[in-house]
């Protein structure tokens, strides 16, 4: 029988990481995600699996500790919330340039600045468009439940190592703090040093006579070679865009109107959709699970079916830019968002859809 537990989102991802065979966690406290580090400290993963956990002196230190461990082929992660993730951007860019796999969690809170500790989705651009310098992308997963917080730890590490890329779980204060039932998996073994040498020949594990030395660097001062490196990265991102799109569709088959929302907003829209259906409005929901790669194709397809797309985000309108790219002018696309840490209510959202597309 599967093990089932009632957990907070932040605890679920910590447990998910331990069970996925994570080797190390480095992090710094910040609300609303401190439970990740607290849970790890309390659960003594060092005794359970040998996973190492350290409270770093800052988010800057955390991300560079992750860099050091990841460059040795280890499964390493950090977590933070918006201001802390801003501090990590240089390190993330270095990991992009060196193609180091890692798992990053942003339990987003409202900004700008110190903002609020309440949930928000205003870090979409930073996560999806590349918050640090240079032409790079991360795979961005958007959980909408505590179960997905748990599941995405394992999925995140799989994708990170499959493509040698940084995977960010873009969550928010609501998903991080709320409690839901979680179905847990069996404990996966941690990777051994011998397996790392075989599977990840690029890792710095110590130069042995049978190979050249391994160098982890993002530096190449020769423009011709640096362009090649960048082209290689772009090809990788293209391959990911072609193969890793994940989404959920609810009641889209006969839909005349469409909500597009991720994370907490998708939960609100799911309820709004039911309220709409009760009133006889044929409304569906498309929930992007990967924000990069974004489900442009599915939105394009639905754009020739529906009469209007209502984006709902806890931001001033960030994801809507990608939805519009997908819709490509075929159908009107409107934004609705609440700011400052306010979660919109389902009837509020439904009324906006009615006002935008039906009453007019």
């Amino acid at each position, binding site marked *: 029988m599967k093990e089932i537990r009632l957990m907070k989102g932040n605890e679920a991802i910590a447990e998910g990481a331990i069970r996925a065979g994570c*080797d*190390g966690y*480095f992090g710094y406290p910040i609300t609303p995600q401190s439970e990740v580090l607290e849970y790890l400290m309390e659960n003594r993963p060092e005794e359970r699996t040998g996973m*190492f956990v*350290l409270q*770093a*002196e*800052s988010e*800057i*230190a*955390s991300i*560079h*500790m*992750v*860099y*050091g*461990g*990841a*460059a*040795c082929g*280890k499964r*390493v992660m950090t977590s933070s919330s918006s201001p802390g993730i801003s501090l990590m951007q*240089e*390190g993330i860019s*270095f990991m992009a340039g*060196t193609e180091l796999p890692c798992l990053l969690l942003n339990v987003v809170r409202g900004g700008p600045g110190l903002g609020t500790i309440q949930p928000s989705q205003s870090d979409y651009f930073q996560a999806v468009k590349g918050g640090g310098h240079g032409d790079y992308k991360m795979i961005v997963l958007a959980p909408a439940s505590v179960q997905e917080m748990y599941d995405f730890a394992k999925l995140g590490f799989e994708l990170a190592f499959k493509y040698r890329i940084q995977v960010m779980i873009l969550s928010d204060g609501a998903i991080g703090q709320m409690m839901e039932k979680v179905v847990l998996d069996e404990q996966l073994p941690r990777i051994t*040093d011998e397996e790392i040498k075989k599977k990840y020949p690029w890792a*710095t*594990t*110590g*130069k*042995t*006579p049978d190979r050249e*030395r*391994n*160098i*982890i*660097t*993002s*530096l190449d001062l020769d423009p011709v070679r640096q362009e090649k490196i960048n082209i290689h990265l772009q090809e990788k991102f293209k391959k990911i865009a072609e193969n890793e799109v994940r989404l959920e569709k609810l009641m889209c088959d006969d839909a005349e109107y469409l909500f597009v929302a991720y994370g907490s907003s998708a939960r609100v829209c799911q309820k709004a959709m039911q309220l709409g259906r009760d009133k006889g409005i044929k409304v569906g929901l498309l929930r992007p699970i990967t924000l990069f790669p974004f489900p442009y194709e599915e939105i394009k397809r639905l754009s020739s079916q529906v009469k209007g797309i209502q984006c709902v985000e806890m931001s001033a309108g960030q994801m809507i830019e990608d939805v519009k790219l997908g819709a490509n002018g075929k159908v009107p696309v409107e934004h609705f968002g609440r700011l400052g840490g306010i979660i919109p209510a389902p009837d509020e959202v439904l009324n906006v859809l009615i006002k935008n597309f039906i009453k007019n």
Partner: protein
Amino acid sequence: MENSISKEKICQPENLVYSKTPLMTCNPLSYCPGCGHGTAHRMIMEVIEELNMQAETIGVAPVGCSVLAYDFLDIDMQQAAHGRAPAVATGIKRLMPNKLVFTYQGDGDLAAIGTGETLHACNRGENICIFFVNNGIYGMTGGQMAPTTLPNMKTSTSPFGRDAASTGQPLKITELVAMLPGTSYVTRQSVHTPANVRKTKKAIEKAFQCQLEKKGLAFVEIVSNCNSGWKMTPLDSNKWMEENMFPFFPLGDIKVPK
């Protein structure tokens, strides 16, 4: 002529008194002629070779003139962001505790942008070695003022001399880390004369020994010249270093391992 000296005649095995350390690669050093970085590199590699630890060593070089250290050191290396090498080394050592891990950092890197990472790695007593090359200036970016620049010393961002009243006194970070219980061995050396090179090598040996014995962080400062940044000939720069740097940054052990 019979007795003329030719290269071929000189380059005979019996005349060989000095050769490349096997753990240095054949790549020509990118450092300015006369700069201390190359000598410091070689001493570290000699010690790793004598310890027979090539396969067990992971080095970290952040930005600074030695950013390309990985071109010269024949070991697995990680390039780190400016100032973050102690954090990177922490990540390595905590997940690979049996590896020999060191950072190689300049003074701008270690004592300005990376002060936080330096102090905390020292305070946690990370079992790593930090080799800290202090040339009192930012070499790589063209000779700007560093936290270790001497009062009244001219640099490109202190063209009239460092004004200590507004920019502070040179930061004696080595004395600072020696106060932290996490450091096992803290010393200040130089590589400008053969005698000093030998002492530095001994210090590097001792530092690695501390790491092998898990005694905590071993910190070796090497006061060095930046003849280009100081705008001097190599010889003049070494003389200037003795006369001006050493009184402020006196050589010798600051903390010895228990």
